[in-house]
């Protein structure tokens, strides 16, 4: 018995150490690549005049697709923001996904909508479209509203893709706030393409909790007052400015956030549109369009830009956060299973050899390994076999490394976009970096484990995301168009 225990102890200790060392080395490498990529991007774009895109006849036309389900509280303001984006040639397609609240009525009333005889083709499968609405008021001529039966976000995006007209599509959550120049920044990589076709581009998503918002625009950026959203700010800063930036540089980007992404419409349609059987449709789409390009022998690029382009509200309660994280875990797992063929498949280049294995081992499996480590720790502590000095050493190793990584990301933010103007906010963010590994990270890890159980037991729902709504001021939407 003692022999078996010793063998297990030897294995677990070595395994935990090797995995942790591997993860940390990977993070260090990603930090370096991210720094290189950020520097290159900033130098390249420091003198760019985005206004030239607005006035140019050569700039491509865009379709912004915003699915909305029971967004009654925010829908009018959010459409107003979408209609006042800084771009010359674009349309806004709002898809009402069978809302049970008064979203549709509010849109009809505010934007003077009426049913039109819209003829379109179901090029992508989606639930029945009941009607297409356009405004009688020419000030809102950019706006098209689709009213369809409820089918989920992916289904709504497919409906939008069927109806929209332009070559490049922007998918956005109707409850997010886009920066006015977001389209200009997102479209630029598509226009810079030379030998390779750019098929997708994503940007940084920022957290709007506690920010001052008026007229559908961020007026003042504040760090969230509550710890939970503040910890998510830390997490997002790390993920977007370090992780995704590096993966873009390494050509292994697997995810463009569903909150905001721009895609080549024909490639999306040719590869089958959004997958409706997954809760991680954003990641699944990126992997699929990339696979499509490789399978058809086409040169391509998926680009990620570090500019903060979109602001979103994050969960403020553990209950809602748990739902969101469970969904993210299920989505990741579903995509990884669907595209398992990529795993160390040389045909798919860096996507198969680097991107996929990283997501499998570090994004998906890391919380599981961590959870097993915790169980092992609990077992040792309860049975009195825990070597406390060694445990503290191991804990210090993990803790300080994690904090230093977070502070690196704060530095990146400070060196690049420094959205938090108050010194106090930056110090609080650094303080959060010290607290996050103890009070927030274990929570997220447990939520991820719950996501795995949810998947095993067949839970396949999105789960409601209680939004507080951004704007309390009621303004005339016509004022900004």
């Amino acid at each position: 018995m003692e022999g078996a225990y010793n063998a297990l102890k030897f294995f677990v200790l070595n395994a935990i150490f090797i995995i942790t060392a591997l993860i940390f080395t990977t993070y260090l490498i990603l930090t370096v690549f991210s720094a290189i990529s950020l520097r290159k991007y900033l130098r390249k774009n420091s003198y760019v005049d985005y206004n030239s895109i607005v006035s140019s006849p050569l700039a491509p036309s865009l379709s912004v697709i915003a699915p909305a389900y029971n967004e009654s509280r925010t829908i009018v303001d959010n459409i107003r923001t979408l209609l006042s984006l800084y771009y010359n040639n674009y349309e806004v397609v709002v898809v009402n996904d069978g809302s049970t609240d008064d979203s549709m009525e509010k849109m009809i009333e505010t934007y003077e909508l009426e049913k039109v005889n819209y003829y379109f083709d179901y090029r992508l499968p989606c639930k029945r479209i009941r009607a297409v609405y356009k405004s009688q008021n020419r000030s809102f001529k950019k706006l098209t509203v689709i009213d369809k039966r409820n089918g989920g976000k992916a289904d709504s995006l497919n409906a939008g893709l069927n109806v929209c007209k332009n070559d490049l599509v922007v998918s956005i959550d109707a409850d997010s706030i886009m920066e006015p120049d977001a389209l200009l920044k997102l479209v630029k990589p598509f226009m810079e393409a030379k030998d390779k076709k750019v098929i997708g581009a994503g940007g940084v998503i920022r957290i709007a909790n506690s920010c001052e918002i008026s007229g559908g625009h961020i007026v003042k950026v504040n760090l969230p007052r509550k710890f939970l959203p503040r910890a998510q700010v830390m997490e997002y800063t790390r993920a977007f400015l370090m992780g995704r930036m590096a993966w873009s540089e390494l050509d292994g980007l697997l995810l463009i956030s569903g909150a905001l992404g721009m895609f080549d419409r024909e490639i999306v349609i040719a590869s089958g549109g959004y997958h409706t059987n997954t809760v991680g449709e954003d990641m699944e789409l990126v992997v699929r369009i990339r696979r499509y390009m490789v399978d058809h022998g086409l040169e391509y690029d998926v680009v990620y830009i570090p500019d903060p382009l979109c602001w979103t509200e994050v969960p403020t309660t553990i209950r809602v956060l748990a739902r969101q994280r469970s969904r993210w875990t299920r989505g990741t797992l579903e995509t990884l299973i669907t595209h398992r063929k990529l795993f160390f498949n040389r045909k798919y280049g860096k996507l198969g050899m680097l991107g996929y294995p990283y997501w499998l081992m570090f994004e998906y499996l890391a919380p599981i390994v961590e959870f097993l480590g915790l169980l092992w720790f609990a077992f040792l502590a309860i049975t009195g076999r825990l070597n406390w000095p060694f445990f503290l050493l191991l804990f210090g190793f993990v803790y300080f490394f994690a904090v230093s990584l977070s502070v690196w990301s704060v530095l990146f933010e400070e060196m690049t976009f420094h959205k938090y103007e108050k010194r106090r906010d930056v110090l609080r963010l650094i303080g959060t970096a010290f607290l996050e590994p103890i009070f927030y990270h274990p929570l997220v890890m447990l939520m991820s484990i719950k996501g795995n159980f949810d998947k095993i037991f067949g839970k396949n729902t999105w789960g409601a995301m209680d939004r507080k709504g951004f704007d309390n001021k009621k303004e005339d939407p016509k004022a900004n168009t």
Partner: protein
Amino acid sequence: MVPILMWILFCGRSSLLYGQDFLNRYSDRVMIRFEKSPAFVTILYGVIIYSIVTLIVLLIIILLNRNRLIRESKQRFYLNEVYQLKLMDYIFEEEKRDEALQDLKQIASNRFSRQLLIDQMIDLSINLKGEIKETIRDLYLVLELKQDSLKKAYSKKWHENVKGFRELAYMNIREASERILESLNSSNEIVRMEAQIAMVGLSDENPYHFLHFMEKPLAVWEQITLHELLIQHDLKVPLFKQWFESENLSVVIFALEMASWFKQRGSGKAVIGLFEHESEEVRNAAYRVCGQIESKSSLPAMKKVYENESYANKLEILTTFGKVPDEKYLGFLKSVLDMEEDVQLQILATKAMENTDEPGISMLIKLMKSKSEYKNYQIIIRHVLDGRIY
């Protein structure tokens, strides 16, 4: 902090000595343990020390950087205001000119403030033309800001080169032309592009001469910038059809777009000639341009090639038929509506019919009333005739 100070105050020197002794003993113990421990533990200690040191360094950098940002932002705000006033004095008030010049010389004494002044002058000259633009250029030379731009153009850092090229092109300084010419073949894509743009700005006679020798593709972004330069710098617009036979496809497409933008109707025949081009993209641009320059003479050729074209090009051909409405082609458009199964093609064909006004619309109304076994015309025609769908 307060309890520690109190403790030091009350316990005095002896406590400090005790503290020092304790630290010495502790560090010795750590060192002994460190030396005896296996590599595994050494690594853990190493990473912890590395992380703590990194943390401290990063915190210092973040705080210093924040201070620098605040200082620079204040300075920028102040200097921009002063520069604006002084520049206005220099440009518009003859009697204050000398005083403004002296002040500017005095203020723009370091690199940061000189760069801000250059940026301000460029911003101003973008929006101005003629004599005033020349006055700004003279001031740029008098203040010897040219040296700063030249230094950047010859710097080893590519991002400085780019900035230098831009400034020299805006201020029409040709002293670095050789350097810019060299950079036309740079391995760095951005430097290459900026060198092209600078050359356009600095050439009087044939600003787009370099297009003849261009081997690398011209991205849409570069095309936009080159087009903007033509308008902004009031450059002589060349006849773009000279590049229709270029081997570089992106150059052909750019030339087509520009021919259309500057309404070079004399290029119509040459554009029609490109309907036979082997590149699908070039043909697509040619069809589009025919629509933009409203070339009626291109319609028979387009009708001829329609059937064998790709889907994207069929869309473009029908769009052009919509832009250049001609009732002679109602039969052709009706046959497209009958034959094609794709919704977009049907809609574009119907729109083109509608655009011919009376004959097209009455034909569509007749079709709507008829009951075809093959196609539900009603739904397509209703969509097209619905004025609310823009």
